[in-house]
């Protein structure tokens, strides 16, 4: 019983207990709630960094495991990939909390909101640290349940509808996932993520079952990862408040699905073995269809948040696509896009929230000339949008570069074409927004809903500043060992071995 055991537990409890305490706080005790929230978030960030230090420098292995009966073990084990996802979720949780405090100022039911908000991050932390599929599944379902109250937070008709759709999809996905997990357990016995390759011995005997299990697992995870045609809940769920959408699209739900796919492909089946079973080709096709379809749908949206939602459908599948190519470069691309998509998309949603909250702008048509009123927000939106398109030196370019080289390495040149077409479509739906924000004449007077000293309340400005800076720097200094790319390379190639 030492820090190797307690640190993962502490990580979980830092948000779990904050969440629980917040439920019991009175609605008016804003200061206490905010400080609790921020303290929890800050603690988690520090803990993640300390854990990173212990793992990377001191080579300590953080592990918690005990049996839950029936041959199922509860395992938390921190590896590089967990660490990356942990760092992403804890850092973004901190900025999103700050944003949410500013965003929801004075609105009802804040204790409920922040309580579930904390639980949501607990679930993410659990997903990141899960050491086997069943543990992953537990937190995955936990995530489904605790995000529901966030989606329906506004309690409007549309929100409740969206919540029902959300549950409908995710519960179904969870059921499929559970089926897959149990079936795999029956065939292969308990499997930790760490023992990659254990399935290969079964490949001959259970070829067909393994294929079906893979399909079921991917379908179960694909619901959250918004693979077409399982993506229907995502654009509907954007009725949630902006910080929720931001978190949902950047780290929590969507990313949990994508992270799960990465885990299943890389750690449960193993990339080469999945390829051997002939499963990655169809997965790549599904991801490509999702990428193109999401972009096409995004083009026809007139509501800003809805367009961003479809853009998420498209962009998250870059991760799946990268996982589906048998080449180390695309593995790097997939892993690094977990982070890159997160920081860019969260910036876009923060900015969309700023427009909506300060000036009441929701439709893209209303954004004409908004840069004159809110230059900083518009600039941040522009940078993140250009990053999404994949224009160097922003983060999105790095992903595209690695996926492209990986596609050639894996011998699937057509994926390069998909990437280019996707970039073109991304430009087609992002650049008109950027253009109209900066260069078109505003067709109306701005009515400020929330007066403040700056263009928007500072709590709405600072968080996107952090995330957009992260998006710029992680592209600009991608070659640095501890940039997201550096981390991803260490995961894919091993320490200190770069091509």
């Amino acid at each position: 019983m030492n820090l190797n055991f307690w640190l993962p537990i502490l990580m979980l409890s830092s948000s779990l207990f904050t969440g629980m305490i917040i439920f019991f706080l009175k609605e008016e005790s804003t200061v206490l709630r905010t400080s609790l929230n921020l303290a929890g978030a800050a603690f988690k960030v520090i803990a993640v960094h300390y854990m990173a230090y212990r793992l990377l420098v001191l080579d300590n292995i953080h592990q918690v495991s005990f049996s839950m009966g029936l041959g199922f073990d509860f395992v938390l084990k921190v590896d590089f990939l967990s660490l990356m996802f942990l760092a992403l979720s804890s850092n973004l949780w901190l900025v999103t909390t700050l944003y949410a405090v500013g965003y929801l100022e004075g609105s009802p039911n804040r204790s409920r909101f922040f309580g579930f908000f904390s639980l949501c991050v607990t679930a993410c932390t659990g997903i990141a640290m899960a050491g086997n599929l069943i543990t992953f599944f537990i937190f995955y379902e936990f995530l489904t349940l605790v995000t529901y109250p966030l989606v329906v937070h506004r309690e409007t008709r549309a929100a409740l509808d969206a919540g029902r759709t959300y549950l409908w999809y995710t519960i179904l996905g969870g059921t499929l996932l559970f089926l897959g997990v149990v079936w795999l357990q029956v065939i292969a016995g308990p499997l930790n993520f760490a023992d990659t390759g254990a399935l290969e011995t079964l490949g001959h005997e259970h070829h067909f079952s393994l294929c079906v299990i893979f399909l079921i697992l991917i379908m179960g995870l694909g619901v959250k990862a918004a693979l077409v045609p399982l993506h229907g809940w995502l654009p509907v769920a954007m009725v949630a408040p902006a910080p929720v959408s931001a978190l949902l699209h950047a780290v929590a739900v969507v990313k949990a699905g994508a992270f799960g796919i990465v885990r299943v492909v890389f750690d449960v089946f193993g990339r080469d073995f999945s390829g051997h079973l002939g499963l990655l080709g169809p997965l790549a096709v599904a991801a490509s269809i999702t990428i193109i379809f999401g972009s096409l749908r995004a083009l026809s949206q007139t509501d800003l948040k809805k367009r961003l939602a479809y853009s998420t459908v498209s962009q998250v599948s870059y991760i799946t696509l990268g996982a589906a190519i048998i080449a180390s470069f695309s593995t790097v691309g997939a892993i690094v896009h977990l982070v890159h998509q997160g920081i860019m998309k969260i910036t876009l949603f923060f900015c969309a929230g700023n427009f909506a909250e300060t000036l009441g702008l929701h439709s893209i048509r209303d954004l004409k000339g908004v840069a004159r009123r809110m230059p900083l927000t518009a600039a941040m939106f522009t940078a993140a949008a250009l990053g999404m398109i994949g224009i160097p030196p922003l983060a999105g370019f790095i992903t595209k570069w690695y996926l492209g080289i990986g596609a050639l390495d894996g011998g699937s040149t057509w994926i390069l074409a998909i990437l280019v077409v996707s970039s073109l479509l991304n430009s087609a739906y992002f650049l008109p927004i950027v253009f109209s924000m900066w260069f078109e004449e505003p067709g109306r007077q701005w009515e400020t809903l929330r007066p403040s000293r700056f263009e928007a309340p500072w709590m709405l400005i600072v968080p996107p500043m952090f995330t957009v800076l992260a998006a710029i720097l992680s592209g600009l200094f991608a070659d640095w060992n501890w940039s997201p790319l550096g981390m991803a390379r260490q995961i894919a190639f091993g320490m200190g071995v770069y091509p």
Partner: protein
Amino acid sequence: MIWIIAVFFPLLLAAVCALPGPGLRTGFRLMPLAPLPALFLAFTGDASSGLELSGFLLKTGLGFGPFGNTFLLFTSLAWFAAALFTALEPLHNLKNRAFCIMFLLTMCGNIGLTASLDAVSFYTFFAFMTFCAFSLIIHSGKELAYRAGRIYLIMAVLGEGLLVAGIITAVFSSPSHFFADIAPAMAWMPETHPVFLLLFAGFGIKAGLIFLHFWLPLAHPVAPTPASAVLSGSMIKAGLLGWMNFFPVGIASLESWGLGFAVLGLGGAFFGALAGLSEKNPKVILAYSSISQMGLMAFCLGLGIIDQDLWIMAGPALYLLVFSHALSKSALFLGTAVIGSSRSGPEKNLLTTIMLWVPSLTLAGAPFTGGAQAKYLLKEAAETSPISEFSIFLLSLSSIFTTLLMVHFLRQVNIIKNKPLSVSGRNPAWLLLIIIIFLMPWILYKLYPEYRIAWMDPGLIFSSAWPVFSGLVVYLLLKKYVEATAGRIVKILPDIALMIDKSWYHLMARIRLHGILESDWAGMNFSRYTDQLIQSKQVRKISRELELKFSAWPIFGMFFMLLIIILALLGMKGG
């Protein structure tokens, strides 16, 4: 360190401009300093003084590539002239924060790409320059500028798409992303590999290659004059540099691609001149002249690609062409603002016109100008090439056409006054540029002593004099006829810009209003479908009937009995 300063110093000044309060005024005045570190480096740096920045992008190299300091030299000179011009003569709409910042950012991109030693940073600076230049093009805010900007942006994005695919393929097939490794790797590629097409077209858009050029005469003239000067003078050469960096120039012979460059280049040279002759606006004429001159450069590059050994001759010709064109075109563009000034009297205008003749004659390649050296070397290279039979004649013909175009420009610039701008004919930036161009033969002689520059050679004087002279004569005698014929010939080519513009709107409308994409089906909202299913009449009827049936005693009893039997069986089996 000096490389970092040279490339990123404009960014620092852009930051100064962005400061509130007096920041803009300071930054505006300091703008001419921005390209000076790069200029200094271009003169003093040597090939081995490069720098490798690990940690930046995917590991960046800055320095002189295999093509030496020429590109950095003319890029920084052109930008210096344009920046000095802007800072000394604040045209009413240029002392503007957005313009200053974007001007400096574009400068950083342009200088950065000429100093890049690896594909990733080259592409980064290239994209940075392309997108920043967009805001310069639409700066005036007029409808014409918006249309030009839209077409520019569409072409830029298409170009980026082609380039990213091409560059990824090129880097994938070579050991690293440094140009030093890419060029030899490209030499091993079969000529039919699509990577060549991607790079050819991708950079061709920027370089104004014929059939991909149509955005250029729209975009270059609508920008504010200093921006037009650098767009046409220096930024356009980024496409050329891209070709040179990625094609195995001087390492391998790619006959068909070289021929493609040469033929399309010459085609562009003539088309640009003809199209320019049919125009009235001096700035548009200059833009077409850029297309024409870039065509000559593409031809020259093509010679070097057809046969690797020819590069020894084509290379120097290309450097001189690029250098003289960059400075002359900048001077001509700035000249349109100078001569358009309403405050200068007729006698001053005469002086300005005379001064404008200097860069015009340089472009035409008249004797005793820098252009003559360039064209002489080009002809020498063409003479030894496998396609010498027709190319020599066509080159002389193109010189005649260039002369025609330049005289046409000089006439138009005097007839049609541009917008009344408050620029005096004594703008030091402009004067400096004219002096440099005037002294160019001497400067080239000093800069490139190894290029056998002999500007007093009688053969050279004769061969450069007669095309210019005949061009002058033809224009004076057949002015009307030439313009009308040019207009007729140019009309053969469809208006591609219009087509692009229309197809963009059409495509967007189609996608937005497409039945399938907009339908309920595409929303994939399964929960709504289940709702519809559950609430449909059929389902309700069936469920009601089933319920009635099941509630009948006999059926219930039967199920109950069945259940007991099954349980009993299970119990027996277990026991």
